[in-house]
C-alpha cells in the first residue's frame, strides 16, 4: 500500500513541477495546489498505513492509526490554504494592475 501511495505522490509531484514551469500564472498556482496535495499524501504515507482504528479513544480498539501525522497534515493544510488564497488574490491584483498573466512578460527592467 505504501508503495502505491508513494507512486501516486510521485505522479502528483511530477505534474506539479510541470505546471509550475509553465508561463501562465494560473497554471503555476494549480501546480502549487498539486504540490501541497502530494506533500500531504506523503506525510500520511510516511507515518505508516497499517490497519487500525480511527484515533478516537471511544472506539476501544486494540490498535489505532498514528495520530501525529494526521495532526501535522491538518496544520499543513490550513497553512497552505492561507498561502494559496493570498497567492490567488495577489495574482488577481497583479492581473488588474499589470494586465498580463504571462510570467515572461512580468520581468523587471
Amino acid at each position, binding site marked *: 500500500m505504501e508503495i502505491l501511495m508513494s507512486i501516486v505522490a510521485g505522479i502528483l509531484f511530477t505534474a506539479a513541477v510541470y505546471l*509550475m514551469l509553465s508561463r501562465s*500564472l494560473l497554471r*503555476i498556482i494549480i501546480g*502549487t495546489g498539486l*504540490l*501541497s496535495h*502530494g*506533500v500531504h499524501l*506523503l*506525510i500520511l*504515507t*510516511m*507515518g*505508516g498505513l497499517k490497519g487500525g482504528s480511527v484515533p478516537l479513544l471511544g472506539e476501544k480498539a486494540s490498535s489505532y492509526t498514528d495520530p*501525529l*501525522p494526521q495532526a*501535522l497534515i491538518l*496544520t*499543513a493544510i490550513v*497553512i*497552505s490554504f*492561507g*498561502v494559496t488564497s*493570498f*497567492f490567488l488574490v*495577489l*495574482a488577481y*491584483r*497583479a492581473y488588474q*494592475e*499589470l494586465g498580463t498573466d504571462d510570467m515572461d512578460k*512580468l*520581468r*523587471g527592467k
Partner: protein
Amino acid sequence: MTSNFVIIPLLIPFVVGVVLIFFKDNIKLQRIISVLSLITTTAFAAYLVQLVQSKGVLTHELGNWKPPFGIILVADMFASLLVLTASIVTLCCVLFAFHTIGERRERFYFYSFVQFLLVGVFGAFLTGDIFNLFVFFEVMLMSSYALIVIGGTKAQLRESLKYILVNVISSALFVIAVAYLYAVTGTLNMADLSQRIAEANQPGILTTIGMLLFIVFALKAALFPMYFWLPGSYSAPPPVIIGLFGALLTKVGVYSIFRTFTLLFYHHPEFTHQIIGYVALLTIVVGAVGAIAYSDMNKILIYNIIIAVGVIVYGVTLTTKAGFEGAIYYLIHDMIIKAALFLLAGSIIRITGTTKLKKMGGLIKDYPLLGWMFFIATISLAGIPPLSGFIGKFLLVQGGLESESYTFVGVLLVSSLLVLYSAIKIFMSCFWGEPTLSSGQEKVSLKGVLYPSAILLAVSVFLGLGAEAVIPYVSTAAQTLMDPSIYIQSVLKE
C-alpha cells in the same frame, strides 16, 4: 518560574500584533504601542541572555508535557543572542518607518505585520521541535509576503509573485523533509532526533534527509544556486522593509543550517560539511561578482547580504571553537550593520529620489552627518579594526587557519576587499564630487530619519570596542554548538 522567561519574548509581539489590529486608523497610538512593546521585548531579551549566561540552557515545556512528547522552547545562548539582536534591529527599523513609510501603508496594518514577523523570527530561533520550526517559518513568511506587497506598486506586485512562489516550493520541500525524518526516526523533537540519529550513526538515508533540509534552508538563506530570487524581491519594497528582511529573514535560514548541522547531522562531516563548504564559497564569489558589477545602490547592498550569508555559513564547517565564535560574532554584527546600511540608503533615496549611483553626487556638502555615518557603516562592513566587522572576520580567519581551510581564508580576505570596494563606490559617487542635484531642488529635511541608524551604528561600535564584554556570551554560544550533549541534556534532563 525562570522557564517562563523563554516564552515572554515570543508572547509580547504576538499579543501586541493582535491588539494593533483594533487601532487601524489611530496611527499615533499604533506607533506608541509598537515602540513601547519593542523596548520591552528588547529588555526581556537582554535579561534572557543574562539568565542563560548564569544558569545554562533554559527550556520551557508547553503544557507541562515532557519532551519528546510535547513542544518545547529552548533558549540556549546562540538563540538568545539572536533574539536580542533581532529585537534591537526591529526597534530601529520601526523608528525609521515613522518618518518614511507613509500614512497609507501605516493604515494597512504595517505595524501588526512587523510584530507578527517578529513572532515568526523569535519562534524559529527558540523552538526545539522541527515541525514547530516549520510553522514559525510560515508565520514569518506570511508576514513577509504581506510586508513585501504592502502599498501595491507595480514592481512590488510583480516581485512578490516570484517571492511567494519560491517560498511555497521551499515550504513544501521542508514538509517533505519532515515527513521523511519522521518515517525514519519516529520523532520530531530536535534533542530526541539528535540522540536517535547518533544511535543509528547517521546512515545514508539520514544524510540524504540532512541534505534535503540543507536545500530548504539554503533557499531561505539565499545560498549559491538558490540565491536567484533575492536580488529581484529585495529591490521592490521600501527601504525600511528591505532593511528588516535583509537583517532578519536570511539569517533565520542561516541559524537553521547551524542548528541542523551542529545538533542533528554532524556524524559525516566529510560528506555534508564539505558540500556546505563549497556552496558557501561559491556564494561568496557570486555575491562579490554581483556587488562589484552593479551601479545601483540597492543592488550592491543586496549582493552584500549574499556575501555575508556565505561567510557565516562557511563557519559551520569550521571545527574549532574560534571558527564558531567568529561565525556567531559575524552573524550578530551582520544583522546590525545590514539594517543600518539599508536605513542609511533609505535616507539617501529620500534625498535623491533614486538608487542609481550615476545620478547622485556631492551630498557631503549639505548632509555631512549622513555622509560620515555611511562611511563608518561602510568600513564596519568591510571589517576595519576598531569596528565590529573586524572581530568576527578575525576569529573566522583564525578558525580557518586552525582547521586548515586556506581556500576559505583566502576567499574571505579577498571578498572583504571587494566588499570595501563596492561600498566605498557608493560613498564616493554619492557624497563626493560635484552636486548633481539641480540648485532649485530644496534641501530635504532629515529630521527623525537619522537617529535609528545612529543607534544601530552605536551598537556596532560597541560590538567592536567592547568586544571583551561580548566575547564571554559568544563563547558560551559556541560551546553549546560544539557540544550537542549540553543541548540534549538540558532538554531531555536524563
